[in-house]
């Protein structure tokens, strides 16, 4: 901790020096990236209520309640919408395009099959969640078509992790020029609400909550590198559909692949964390298409005579959107013994040139 405080203070001082010396300089102030530090991730505690977005070059984090949003509308050139995997949400297409005709029959069918409930016994769960590693490649909700008649109504279980159990929703999304129109209602409701959602080039996604409309969740796409969260993951399982079982994991670490962040994993026995220098970067390949490159690999699951623990033999290199490269290793799953408050340390290896 002390080290971090000291360094961020130097960073501030450096910034202050620049400010004072270049008082009237119209050029934007350049704050040098933070050299190193420790971050105690604000996961919110034993119930893991938060997703915490972390940015190394500022040494900061932003914690957001996982239940604060329901849908994430892509701001990219594509028209795609994600469901909230961090609460374990699931969606199924109903085959209908008129939201008012969806109701009791569809609910009953989905309840009977159990397809919208994330459990180890739901073998077709993988069909009803976004791809865990790269959600935009295979979202639960099909790409929003420019042909309205192709956009089906979906039944949505909003997820129950870090959230009280809420009634299922029915939703239908269509294009609206360069943006989206969302129709939503409780699944058994006769009426529905419409909401227009515009893309925002600064963000990866625009987030919507059924209760609060457009909400702030993810920082701007250039403003975070990795995020710690609980969320839906997947694992190979021969009995399940596509040989993959969707399940919920409480210590996932995403990397900001849509914001241009790349991650590589290094084994301690290859190069020790303390020995890793700029020269070693060239041997690494940074993954920019799998947000679960860190994922669950940083900790072991525990067993009959052991608790889950941070893996001591693995660390990561994170290349941020400005091409600063940090080495990052996890220190702990807990803060004062409380789960859901992991900590990590990071150190700048290579500064943007």
């Amino acid at each position, binding site marked *: 901790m002390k080290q971090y405080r000291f360094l961020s203070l130097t960073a501030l001082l450096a910034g202050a020096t620049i400010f004072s010396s270049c008082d009237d300089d119209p050029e934007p102030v350049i704050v040098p990236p933070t050299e190193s530090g420790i971050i105690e991730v604000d996961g919110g*505690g*034993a119930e*893991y209520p938060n997703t915490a977005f972390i940015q190394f070059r500022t040494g900061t984090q932003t914690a957001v309640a996982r239940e604060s949003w329901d849908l994430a509308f892509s701001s990219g050139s594509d028209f795609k919408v994600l469901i909230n995997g961090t609460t374990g949400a699931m969606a199924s297409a109903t085959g209908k395009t008129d939201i008012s005709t969806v109701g009791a029959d569809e609910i009953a069918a989905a309840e009977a099959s*159990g397809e919208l*409930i994330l*459990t180890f*016994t739901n073998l077709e769960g993988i069909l009803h969640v976004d791809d865990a590693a790269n959600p935009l490649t295979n979202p639960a909700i099909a790409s929003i078509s420019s042909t309205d008649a192709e956009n089906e109504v979906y039944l949505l279980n909003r997820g129950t*992790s870090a959230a009280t159990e809420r009634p299922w929703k029915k939703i239908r999304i269509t294009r609206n020029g360069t943006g989206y129109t969302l129709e939503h209602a409780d699944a058994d409701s006769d009426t529905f609400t419409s909401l227009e959602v515009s893309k925002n080039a600064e963000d990866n996604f625009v987030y919507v909550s059924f209760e609060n409309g457009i909400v702030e969740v993810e920082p701007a796409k250039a403003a975070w590198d990795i995020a710690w969260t*609980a969320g839906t993951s997947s694992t190979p399982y*021969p*009995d399940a559909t596509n040989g993959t079982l969707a399940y*919920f994991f*409480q210590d996932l670490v995403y990397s900001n692949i849509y914001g241009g962040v790349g991650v590589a994993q290094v084994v301690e026995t290859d190069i020790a964390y303390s020995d890793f220098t700029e020269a070693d970067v060239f041997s690494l390949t940074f993954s920019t298409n799998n947000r679960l490159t860190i994922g669950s690999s940083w900790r072991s699951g525990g*067993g*009959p*005579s*052991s*608790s889950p*623990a*941070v893996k*001591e033999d693995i660390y990561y290199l994170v290349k941020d959107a400005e091409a600063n490269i940090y080495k990052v*290793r*996890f*220190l*702990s*799953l*807990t*803060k*004062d*013994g*409380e*789960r859901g408050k992991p*900590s990590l*340390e990071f150190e700048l290896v290579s500064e943007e040139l």
Partner: protein
Amino acid sequence: MHRFNLNKHFLLFLLLLLAMPLWTQAQTVLKGKVVNTKGEAVSHATIWLAELKGEVADEQGNFTLTKLPKEGKLKISAVGFETIWSTWPAGKTSESFVLSASTSELETVVVTGNFEPQSARQSVYQVRTISSEVIQNRAPRNIQEVLSTELGIRFSQDNALGSSNMELLGMSGQNVKILIDGIPMVGRQGTSNEININQIDINRIERVEIVEGPMSVVYGADALAGVINIITKSDGSEKFDVKARVQEETVGNEYSPFDGKGTHIRSVTGSYKFKNWDFGASFSQNNFGGWKGEETGREYEWLPKDQNFLNLKAGWGNESLNLEYQLDFLDETVFSYGPEARLEMLDQEFITSRWMHRLSGRWDTNSKFGVTWQGAFTDYARESQTWVTNARTGEHYQSQAPGTNTTIDYIGFSWRMIGDWKIAEKFKLQPGIDLNLENGSGERITENEGIQDYAVFLSGEWSPISTIKIKPGLRKSWNSAYDTPALIPSLNTKFALNENLDLRLAYANGFRAPSIRELYFNFFDASHSITGNPDLKAETSNSFNGSLDWKTEVNPTWKTSTVLGAFYNDVKDRIAYGQDPDNIQVTTLFNVEHYKTTGFTLNQAHSFKNLTANIGFSYIGRYNLLSEEQTVVPQMSWTPEVNANLTYQISPWRSTATLFYKWTGALPGYETTADSEGNPSATQIMLDGYHWMDISFKKDFGGHLSVNAGARNILDVKQISSTSQGGDAHGTGTQRPVGYGRSYFLGLTYQLNK
């Protein structure tokens, strides 16, 4: 938590002991000793005086009388010996009385299920006894060690909690009633709600009686597979008696003297008699340093455990009434060290404290009617604490985060009273009542009213001719929390086919009550959704038992006995986990499964000059639940076991050498796996068998000191492997811990009495 300041308490205790002789000076007594024809002491003989008052001699055969009996006449009887009538020689203050052995010296006395102690031969129950000699010769570390080489008993080590689960004749430990001097132990905890049998002071155990088959009529719930009755030491007839024991053991190849690595046992016991009163106190420590095994960091394969035991007792008796109060206190801490970490290392401590108050007594109104009772009040608490060690700052403190410190409290009250009414020479009635009140609370246990269980039972013993005994029994109980079986019947019979051959046949109904955890325990977190089911009813069983017991004397130096036993158990409404139909995300418990066990056991005991040999074989079948779905799965899976127990007395050296051996056969089972097309199919799985051997030597020096030394787990067993793919929820993997390798021990026992 209740933590002892050892030094302080120990000092107090020593002072007490030192003060005792001062009180005893004034008494003049007659000192007698009961010996056999070889001049060796006869333990626990009963000395009957003319006015019907009985005295019991101690282990060394010694007894004392405060005054001369009427006309100096006394009657002395002991199990296995012919009863004698004798006269106290006038003017003498000490005298020896010689008993000659009755036809069979292999006889033992048993108390389980009976109104009063009686010879095992006379009992209608087939009772296995682990005698005090066997326990003394073995100098065990805990009771598990003693039981684990018994036929039909298996332990599975739960190294996450530092405890173990027992299985008796193919039935899990939650179906076995554990009694201390006939009083049920409470404190059901751990994953399967069974008694942790190692939470009993090994130094206080006199002998263990095992009854196979349901004893539910007398002992109620959970006595479905059988009863293990742990008989604690009773006071001898000495004025005062002080005993100290120190034992040091290696744990595999790990040891450090007196503290830390290894097992360190120490115990002090004292008792004192004064007129009609007797008092006793004992304190024991049993510290296990854990075993690292393959672990290199902070973790242990076998968790370290510290135990402190305290026992205080006071008794009062005259010719018709006996009362005894005992207080037992246990303080146990199991240390679970978390893995090495760069910042925060988390350790857990599981702290159990148990206060047990017991009041037992016996009242003989006249020669026709007597009553015994056993009552107990137990306060059991198990606390889990999480401790944080910061690797960078070195700070060590208890975590205050929510959910990291939990407590389960358990309060139980039990009262059992049995009357013994001799209606006629050939007919006795034994009515009884049994109350059991329990209340559990804790973070994960939903608010509940506790469980109140009231029962009445009646058994009769009819002996139409001297060679036949018929003992029918019936129990009716009422329970506040679950549906009890309507009536629990049992029928035990014993036929003396000839002088040497006894046949016992029994039918009994048994039941296991759903535990507080099964009824009310809720556990929800990211990976668990488990609720109790308050609508559970008891599991019930029908059980049939038979045994043939043949005792003979080949010649005066060679005696043998052979017992052949067979059993069949059929359990209905077994409680098992399933999906809640109202919410398929939730796992709860139901009375759904069916289970059976069957098998036979063969035991042979030989006593030839200085050698005693017990050899046994069992073949036990366990029901495969999967056979209901998959035709390829056989209904029963069979496992053999062999055990042997050899004792050789090296008379000139006053030494005893004992060898304990058991082969636990491989345990087959079936589990569901997916075949290549993804369809469920059954696969046979196998848990490996293993051989276990202990050797111990005991030598007496003078009248006071004895030394025990030996080696345990000589064959160096550590783990056995299982071919099971799934295993249980906590994925114990394919290796199951059995032992921690070959270990050595050395112990001293010093006894002083007057």
